[in-house]
């Protein structure tokens, strides 16, 4: 049943995600770079039409084409590329004042954006024609795409004005003597049901040659025995010259005795008709789908802009702050330890048979003199307790506490209750430390304001690709994020793998909290909100075993993400709260900085992450591939730079970076999906329990091979 519920949850996500992606593609298609205004050549050496052919073409049976001229002394003003919210109303005003009708060849996607303008044109008695959906050159696209372009435009017109039109002006067409055989063949193939309306006079207003020139280009030739179709543009650019020229052309043509007509009036055809209910419904559906798509893409665009700005700011801040923190740490490092409190190391262990000996023995090799080691066997079903027992002759001050299986937090609390040290170091049962790790993690407690210290957890088993990815992630998380948190006093997680706490502080928190599955984050936030400073000590290294399978990684990260959300929810009232000064005199800024940071970069960014990738693909296909690739390149270069900087700070080899580009394509998306599932689990109230990861005891692998070795 639980499996079915989980599958249904993903089904909902899949359906909603598909609808979202589809809407982005719709938005991308309808608002991609629409072809520029323009007309074809004035004439061609091999015109497909006979000399003197009329500007209106109608296709008949057996590939026949009939051309038609306008009656003498008539002028049909035609406007392409609209509707445009700035220029179309001005044109309409000029026409209305002169009581002149016109024919508007509209671009479908612009009709969807400004349906009211098309209605206004129809109300004014003007005719409407099709000018494709995105102003494409019909001859340079597939027959299928041409068909879609024409049909979508018809639907858009039907939705906007309740009519259909059989007039078509192909973009980039001009006068009849410029029609090539290829043009004619394509129009016949995709638009045989339309009247193709060309022009006899091309004003070339789209080139903005000046009002006088437009008027000269547009005016009917003196002595012409047929009527004139004049081509203007009411969209696709600044049409101020067109507005002025139209007024003059109307005045001069009238003086010469011309009568103004629409194209249907001129050819005596009922080119416009009320749309059928089906076509109107299809048009409304298209309009609705497009509106939803545009709205969603705008919201997402704003989110992306905000998140990009935050990410860049974060990266810049990290570089500056991490450098400062490292310098401070390096200055402090070589000093002998004047402060040497008693220390208890508590190791909770559940089925850690393969690795617990390495953990205990690494602690036994520690250079710290006053050390108590407590292993809490949390009801293991393997030989963990027996393995610890075999170490009794080799390790002094080792104690084993056994309890029925109660969970990690309760095991830690059991160990804390049994310990005696002033400082308590909590480490995982699959983690090994270097000889000076304890000395280094204890050093910051010399400052009475420090309540806890985060060590530097490093991936021990980094052989495979998964291990390398996690290695890079750990190094970035510890050397950039935690150094930033250290200097700004807003640490959110002292990791369970290696962390140290003042006993008084853990007494005040009543031990390790059990309400969340990220007990380390929960405990750290609790301590921070009490006003204790939480430091980061990068030189206190601990080598831990990372999941070696994708399934294991998914489980671990699911628990982390779910637990982080639980911790953030538990402490939600502290979000935005002012800085707190604690018992030791330190001031922490968790409410104003730490918790919002956790929500934005730990929850919100991963949740929106998949959409960012889809947005990039849409940008690549529909808008500007160069700009999109450039943006993607800049983002990856930033990640690369940050990773290289973090590795350098940690004394790691830079050659690991070869795995980073692949991480951006596979690993990142998996991590995003983990957070999505955790969020779904949290929203639907799913109970999550610890999943024990399979251990191989390989935590110390990299320690043995590491260039930083055991002393750092």
């Amino acid at each position: 049943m639980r499996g079915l519920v989980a599958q249904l949850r993903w089904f909902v996500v899949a359906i909603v995600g598909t609808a979202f992606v589809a809407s982005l593609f719709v938005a991308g298609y309808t608002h991609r770079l629409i072809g520029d205004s323009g007309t074809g050549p004035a004439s061609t050496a091999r015109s497909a039409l006979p000399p003197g052919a009329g500007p209106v073409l109608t296709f008949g049976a057996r590939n026949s084409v009939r051309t038609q001229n306008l009656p003498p002394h008539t002028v049909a003003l035609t406007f392409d590329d609209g509707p445009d919210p700035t220029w179309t109303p001005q044109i309409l005003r000029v026409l209305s004042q002169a009581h002149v009708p016109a024919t508007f060849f509209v671009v479908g996607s612009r009709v969807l954006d400004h349906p009211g303008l098309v209605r206004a044109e129809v109300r004014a008695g003007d005719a409407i024609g099709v000018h494709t959906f995105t102003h494409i050159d019909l001859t340079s696209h597939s027959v299928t795409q041409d068909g879609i372009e024409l049909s979508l435009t018809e639907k858009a017109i039907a939705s906007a004005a309740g009519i259909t039109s059989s007039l078509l002006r192909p973009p980039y067409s001009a006068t009849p003597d410029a029609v090539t055989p290829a043009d004619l063949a394509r129009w016949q193939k995709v638009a045989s049901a339309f009247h193709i309306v060309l022009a006899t006079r091309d004003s070339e207003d789209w080139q903005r040659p000046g009002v006088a020139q437009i008027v000269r280009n547009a005016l009917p030739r003196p002595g012409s025995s047929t009527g004139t179709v004049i081509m203007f543009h009411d969209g696709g650019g600044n049409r101020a010259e067109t507005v002025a020229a139209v007024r003059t052309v109307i005045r001069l043509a009238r003086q010469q005795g011309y009568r103004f007509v629409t194209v249907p009036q001129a050819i005596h055809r009922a080119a416009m008709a009320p749309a059928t209910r089906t076509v109107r419904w299809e048009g409304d559906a298209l309009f609705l789908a497009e509106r939803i798509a545009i709205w969603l893409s705008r919201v997402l665009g704003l989110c992306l802009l905000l998140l990009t700005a935050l990410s860049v700011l974060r990266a810049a801040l990290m570089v500056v702050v991490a450098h400062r923190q490292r310098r401070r740490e390096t200055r402090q490092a070589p000093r002998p330890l004047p402060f040497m409190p008693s220390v208890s190391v508590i190791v909770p262990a559940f089925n850690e048979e393969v690795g617990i000996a390495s953990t205990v023995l690494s602690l036994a090799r520690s250079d710290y003199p006053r050390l108590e080691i407590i292993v809490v066997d949390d009801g293991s079903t393997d030989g963990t307790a027996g393995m610890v027992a075999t170490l009794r002759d080799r390790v002094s001050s080792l104690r084993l506490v056994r309890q029925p299986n109660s969970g990690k937090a309760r095991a830690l609390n059991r160990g804390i209750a049994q310990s005696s040290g002033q400082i308590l170091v909590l480490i995982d049962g699959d983690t090994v430390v270097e000889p000076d790790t304890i000395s280094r993690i204890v050093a910051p407690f010399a400052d009475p304001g420090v309540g806890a210290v985060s060590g530097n957890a490093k991936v021990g088993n980094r052989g495979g690709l998964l291990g390398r990815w996690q290695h890079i992630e750990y190094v970035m998380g510890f050397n950039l994020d935690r150094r930033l948190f250290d200097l700004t006093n807003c640490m959110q997680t002292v990791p369970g793998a290696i962390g140290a706490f003042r006993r008084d502080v853990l007494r005040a928190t009543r031990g390790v909290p059990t309400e969340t599955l990220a007990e380390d984050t929960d405990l750290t936030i609790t301590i921070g909100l009490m006003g204790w400073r939480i430091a980061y000590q990068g030189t206190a290294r601990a080598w831990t075993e990372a999941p070696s399978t994708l399934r294991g990684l998914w489980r671990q990260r699911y628990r982390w993400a779910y637990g982080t959300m639980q911790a953030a929810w538990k402490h939600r009232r502290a979000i935005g709260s002012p800085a707190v000064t604690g018992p030791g005199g330190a001031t922490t800024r968790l409410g104003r900085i730490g918790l919002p940071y956790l929500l934005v970069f730990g929850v919100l960014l991963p949740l929106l992450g998949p959409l960012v990738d889809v947005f990039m693909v849409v940008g690549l296909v529909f808008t500007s591939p160069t700009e999109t690739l450039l943006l993607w390149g800049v983002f990856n270069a930033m990640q690369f730079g940050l990773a290289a900087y973090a590795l350098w700070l940690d004394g790691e080899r830079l050659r690991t970076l070869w795995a980073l580009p692949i991480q951006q394509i596979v690993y990142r998306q998996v991590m995003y999906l983990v957070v999505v599932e955790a969020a779904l689990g949290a929203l639907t109230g799913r109970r999550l329990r610890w999943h024990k990861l399979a251990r191989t005891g390989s935590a110390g692998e990299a320690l043995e091979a590491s260039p930083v070795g055991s002393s750092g």
Partner: protein
Amino acid sequence: MSTMSTISVEPPEVQSHASDGAIFVDQTGVRRRVWAVLGTTVSLAALAYLALLVAAVLTSTGPGSAS
């Protein structure tokens, strides 16, 4: 010198662990039902939207009809 000692702790008799990691957990089942209704509604809306898009595209293929 070995100073190791082993302490076995008996299970707490009355203490329940039901609250462990319980934040977000739907104890009453009400939330599950609410989300079931909401999930169904959202899925249907998304499906309707997809159908709308598919219909718009399917009815737009082929030569222009000048209908």
